[in-house]
């Protein structure tokens, strides 16, 4: 789904069977897959979002290659070890062009796909040549993805207008250029701008927040800003609170008690005596010294 390969409609190859390998190693051949409007709230927990530009139109999707991900989707045996399997992976290697009402003509596969076999695998059509139940479900899901592309279009235009998109770092040479949301710019958007984005639909704001949230799944070296900077900040408990989106799941600050070890025998007095202010204000000077 990263390159525009020549695709053929299923009607032309309906005699073939779907023959996926025992492992999921084929996922490593993908960079980016489209995301559906019905799944982006769930997918943002597990995948970084990214936009690709096709025919001058931005399309929203998920990064699935291990070089982008904090947690790989495949184990050493190339078996799936992810949590959520997005629609596009469930429908691989099929796509739908949206131009044909006829299901077998509308669904396409890459010409010469290694996932089709003449001798073994799952049949795509029944004995009467009609689409199988599984294929009908795949068509429904792929149609959802196509509709989602239209639904996201206005929101993505908002991001282009507001210059919220920035190129993704860490590309392999020859890869299509991908873009992620610039969370620093988004964080700087004022109330009026956010309200303007949401004036007709909340989607563009909602999606932008989900997108910034999804970046916790992106390798730090792929982020536009300095990854070392973000990591340094997240190690300090209070600094991490001021940089909430930079906290990766494996960097959750543990709660450690670093107070002085003072003998109770040395203790004297009470807070009222040493702190003439109400208890709610005793830490106001930040130094711990009672003013």
């Amino acid at each position: 789904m990263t390159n525009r390969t020549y695709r053929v409609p299923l009607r032309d190859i309906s005699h073939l069977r779907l023959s996926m390998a025992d492992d999921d190693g084929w996922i490593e051949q993908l960079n980016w897959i489209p995301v559906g409007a019905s799944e982006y709230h769930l997918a943002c927990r597990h995948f970084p979002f990214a936009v690709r530009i096709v025919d001058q139109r931005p399309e929203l999707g998920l990064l699935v290659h291990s070089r982008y991900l904090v947690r790989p989707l495949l184990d050493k045996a190339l078996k799936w070890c992810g949590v959520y399997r997005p629609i596009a992976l469930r429908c691989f290697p099929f796509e739908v062009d949206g131009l044909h009402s006829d299901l077998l003509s509308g669904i396409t596969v890459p010409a010469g796909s290694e996932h089709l076999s003449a001798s073994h695998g799952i049949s795509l059509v029944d004995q009467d040549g009609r689409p199988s139940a599984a294929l009908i479900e795949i068509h429904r899901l792929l149609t959802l993805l196509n509709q989602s592309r239209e639904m996201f279009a206005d929101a993505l235009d908002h991001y282009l207008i507001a210059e919220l998109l920035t190129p993704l770092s860490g590309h392999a040479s020859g890869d299509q250029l991908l873009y992620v949301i610039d969370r620093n710019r988004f964080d700087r958007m004022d109330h009026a701008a956010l309200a303007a984005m949401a004036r007709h639909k909340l989607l563009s704001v909602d999606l932008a927040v989900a997108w910034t949230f999804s970046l916790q799944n992106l390798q730090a070296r792929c982020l536009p800003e300095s990854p070392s900077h973000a990591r340094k900040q997240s190690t300090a408990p209070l600094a991490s609170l001021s940089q909430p989106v930079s906290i990766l799941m494996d960097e959750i600050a543990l709660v450690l008690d670093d107070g002085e070890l003072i003998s109770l025998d040395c203790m004297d007095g009470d807070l009222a005596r040493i702190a003439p202010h109400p208890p709610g204000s005793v830490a106001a000077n930040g130094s711990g010294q009672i003013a």
Partner: protein
Amino acid sequence: MIDLRRAMESSSRTQPGRPGESRVPLLGDVLRRRIYSPRSYAQARNAAVVPVVHSECDVLASWFPLVWRCRERHTEFVALRGLVDEERFQPRPARSLLPLILRAYPFVFDHSGTIGPASARMLDDVVADEPTDIGATITTVHHRLSRATQTRFAFMDRFAEDAIATAEIGQALARMDAFEPWPLAFDIAGHRIEVTDLFVIRRAMFEGARLAPLLRQHGLSCARMLSLHRVSLFRAGGLLAAARAALQESCETSGPDVGGPASQHQASPAPQVQLAAEA
């Protein structure tokens, strides 16, 4: 079959209450107390429904549903850490992820009014049942707050700073009639687990531009709350899985005596565990 009441027996022994139920003023001998890390206290470890503020959404939404608790016209933004007030019912990787207000524990706010920067700090008068360190005193011999106290007060400052905006957003949503009940009731191993008084934003509110005025007033903090609230709802599945695992673990460790013969429990009504609202 598991008798949930017996499965929770160890919890009831170590959990005399929820955070803040035994708060005392920071005066006199109280300042001579030793405090330990928040997770040393059963109250902090086990609390299932915990008040949170908007600035925590990015971190907490990865593990816990972020919803509103509404009772007696009071709306509170909360994180649901588990389906039962017991640590084993929380997703294992998230047990060390404490919401801001619990990172300040055993210090708590005076709950007599809306929490804000002027709210008084108090101490929860509880025992650290599982100390993870040797602790630290609240104040030092030099009449200073100890570093441990300073750190916790800083967490409270941060909570208090964002609490007002968080409450205002919740109240505005309530005025817009944006909430609908979020019934969480499960039958697990023949027992009823139910969390009450939780509310979510109605799906229809996200269609159109009904929430745009809120964004104009509260900006990005509101946008994060609204969106990550939706994102976080998917974490309910993780809580359910954790509850099943906890009950399974109880069954395995307690052996066949726990709960008695299955037929007895199938014949009797399942005990209902309800999460009361105080956290």
